[in-house]
């Protein structure tokens, strides 16, 4: 193995639970139901999936949800905005912790 990530892993994802087939079946049944049309459309769920994929920085998920977003008719504008939502929340999450910094610094400062 030359790299930790291999693109062909994605096609063989189903094999990952070979040694625990009942758990695997439960997971993939659940996964399939989650992405079916519901109160949220399949397209909306795929955009959310893309946002989470970018957040967890999973290359398999980024490949899969990029393709699924395009096949659901999402535009590059929408997908790019989803990436900015991720960026805003990740950046905002760091920035809001600045409040802890400020409280600590103010307590220690004259």
């Amino acid at each position: 193995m030359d790299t930790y990530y291999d693109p062909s892993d994605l096609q063989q994802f189903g094999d990952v639970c070979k040694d625990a087939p009942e758990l695997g079946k439960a997971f993939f049944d659940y996964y399939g139901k989650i992405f079916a049309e519901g109160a949220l459309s399949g397209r909306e769920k795929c955009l959310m999936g893309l946002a989470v994929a970018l957040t967890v920085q999973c290359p398999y998920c980024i490949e899969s949800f990029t393709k699924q977003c395009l096949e659901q008719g999402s535009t590059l504008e929408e997908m790019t905005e989803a990436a900015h939502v991720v960026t805003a929340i990740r950046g905002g999450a760091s920035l809001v912790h600045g409040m802890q910094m400020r409280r600590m610094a103010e307590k220690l400062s004259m």
Partner: protein
Amino acid sequence: MPGSAAACTVRPDGVAPFARNLEAHGLALVRDAALTLQVNVGLLCNLACRHCHLEAGPARTEVMSPDTMRQVAEHARTHAYAAIDVTGGAPELVPGIAGFMARLAPLAKRTMFRTNLLALAREESRELLEVLVENQVALVASLPSLAASQAEAQRGKGVLDHSLAMLRRLNDLGYGAEGSGLDLDLVSNPTGAFLPPGQEAAERRFKADLARRHGIAFNRLYVFANVPLGRYRKWLEASGNYEGYVRRLADAFNPCTLAGLMCRTLVSVGWDGQVYDCDFNQAEGLPMGGVPRRIHELDGPPAAGARIAVGDHCYACTAGAGFT
């Protein structure tokens, strides 16, 4: 030579030839009663879209002659079709097209004219547009995406704004308005190496977005997978997407699509009068019944039960919900 896909790319491992795939499923693709006469009046086009299976463009010179137009009209008059569907290239650029449409329109219950919108927007198309309105010819207009970057990546710079302007003009003429008798349908092909979205959901979104952002109305949206032939195939090969795309199509093969495939009820006539089972077989050079024939040589529409010529490109029409 444009039009005949060079067999320079091998079929991906594990993807069976389409004909063998049908056999493996115990299926055969055969004709039903012919309902639609599709007339491709030429490969000349003002655009050179990257997904075009016919490689139409401004440099092409192939257009239907007045004699062939006469033969097509005579065939349509003698053998009543439910629908006549005129396509190209850009049919607007073909000399004599306004008169041809005026002759064809009374011969079928529904007549359709495919347009890329920009060719119809030209001043030279004014007379044609009057004929289309007067004869209540349905317009089927290409609009791949409402995102400028994607629409223009497929069709060329500035295309989206011009398309939207022409759609507004068509709305002003009554096209797309309920009860006007002037149908305005849109066609969206994916702008890359991926399959189209579900038609109903995409139509809802196009209707909402076009109304909200541009004040445009239309009747129906059709979404079609791109067929890996012609210029699109060359792009797939050059971009390293051919194998993945063909595999994606084959993996999405849906035997249930066969009953509703448009090739079962279509007679496709090329610019030179040659007849095919569909426009894609025309691009691939696969004549109807395996024998090259021109429209005036047909005794009538092909008989139900006749076998349809197939190739690996047929995977595009049988993927997912299918090409109907």
